[in-house]
């Protein structure tokens, strides 16, 4: 049951979007976010939407998985809409009832805010849908490597992240096993109040933590046996390399930001 959970939900594939260097995709996401926050009026948003849809289509990402991904964020989106709708006091008064006032500017802000958040989430999904977690970690490590000069342990953080990703399925399997073992001895995880159910999780978490620490210890020894001694002097099996497509993608990203900023000046 727990095995169905996949983190980051990567859809393996071999589309132009999948083939881009993870660093390109990370930078592109940053550019996309900048553009999104600069966007002001319909024309800008339409441009962004065209970009988003084109990338989605190129990456062959099923639209359904996008909408499914948006669902958990629904409360957040509705809350943003409601707050913006009622708390903006500019423009024409459209509607009034007791303490509720809705102004034209409020409707506008709420609409664009919701659009912005949804497009932001979709953009992030595009990255995780088309990039394997390992590639993502590699990309982050490479992009953040200038921070090493400031004594930020970039390699160590990336290593921790990839080990965490590696052990998620192992620990999920283990959780399943512990749950079965506790159920076999009469534990009940499904009924009772929320507090009762939370308490029932303790007998799962304790053995899980103990075993995770034991695993960590053994893994550290095994890594030492394989000559691990930090990031210094390390080489890689797969070296990240920018291809012409990556430069093209980045150019498009920069153009997008430029276009949105220009449109902003004209209030579009």
């Amino acid at each position, binding site marked *: 049951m727990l095995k169905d959970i996949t983190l980051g939900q990567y859809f393996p594939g071999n589309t132009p979007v999948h083939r881009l260097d993870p660093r390109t995709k990370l930078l592109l996401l940053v550019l996309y976010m900048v553009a999104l926050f600069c966007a002001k009026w319909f024309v800008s948003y339409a441009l962004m939407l065209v970009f988003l849809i084109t990338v989605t289509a190129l990456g062959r990402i099923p639209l359904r998985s996008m909408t499914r991904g948006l669902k958990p964020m629904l409360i957040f989106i509705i809350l943003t809409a409601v707050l913006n709708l009622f708390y903006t006091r500019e423009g024409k008064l459209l509607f009034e009832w007791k303490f509720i006032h809705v102004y034209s500017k409020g409707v506008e802000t709420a609409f664009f805010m919701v659009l912005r958040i949804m497009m932001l989430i979709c953009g992030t999904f595009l990255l995780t849908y088309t990039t394997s977690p*390992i590639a993502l970690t590699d990309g982050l490590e490479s992009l953040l490597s200038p921070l090493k000069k400031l004594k930020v342990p970039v390699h160590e953080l990336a290593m921790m992240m990839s080990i965490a990703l590696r052990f998620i399925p192992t620990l999920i399997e283990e959780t399943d096993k512990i749950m079965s073992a506790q159920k076999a001895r009469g534990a009940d995880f499904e009924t009772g109040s929320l507090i009762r159910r939370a308490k029932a999780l303790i007998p799962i978490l304790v053995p899980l933590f103990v075993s995770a620490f034991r695993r960590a210890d053994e893994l550290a020894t095994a890594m030492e046996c394989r000559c691990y001694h930090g990031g210094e002097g390390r080489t890689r*099996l797969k070296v990240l390399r920018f291809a012409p497509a990556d430069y093209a993608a980045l150019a498009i990203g920069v153009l997008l930001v430029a276009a949105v900023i220009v449109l902003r000046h004209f209030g579009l």
Partner: protein
Amino acid sequence: MAEPIIVTENLGFTYPPNGEKLAFPVFENLSVSIDRGSFTAVIGPNGCGKSTLAKHFNGILLPSGGRVLVSGMDTSDENLLLEIRRTVGMVFQNPDNQIVSNVVEEDVAFAPENLGVPTAEIRSRVDDALKTVGMYEYREHAPHLLSGGQKQRIAIAGVLAMQPTCIVLDEPTAMLDPRGREEVIETVSRLNRERGITVVLITHHMSEAVNADRVIVMHQGGILLDGSPREVFTQVQTLREAGLDVPQTTELLYELKNLGWDVPLDALSEAECAAAILKVLRRPE
């Protein structure tokens, strides 16, 4: 006479190592020497110190007395540690806890990456190691979806990619089913036979020790028996007193001998054992 690759000289180790109050010696004055290119099995009951000994072979643990030499390098010299660990690779019991990456080939590449091997050579080492253990077609798989025996072969490939002269395996089959056990033992003996890699196999499955050149039996931190499998396993009484089993063939012959049959004890393989029994049965009264 073959030259030794691992030598322990009067090795002493106290646990816990920092000389606390409750410290007790795991072993004192233990001297063993492992010959280059040999296949040595180390057996012994739980808590006899066989895993602790193995961890001294590549400097994971450091002796509190005496010293350990790997190809003449002292394991207590920190500057030599990487070279020592490159020379003596180690495989552990739980395959899940020694696989670092969630792609098979990236895991095998871990050791050469740490050693700073150039990218092109890492590629060829990884491919070679995976082909050697027969896991090449799984190179892009996720390790957690493989069977125990396959995972343990990946772990062996991960060590092979360092191009070690010696591989120490600490109960590599303890968590595997019979089929996985067979895969691993077959791989290990092939490495020893075809590549001349020195193998030290720590195990509690007597049947795995039968194929070794040499069997060392440890008991209470010391060496109880040391010799060829035939020499060691015929000492049924001594082994039993140490709380150890003997291979099933030896056990059968031992019981028959006690009943007055005239059978040899050193027929270790099933075929040899059957032949020995047949010989007695066919003998005219």
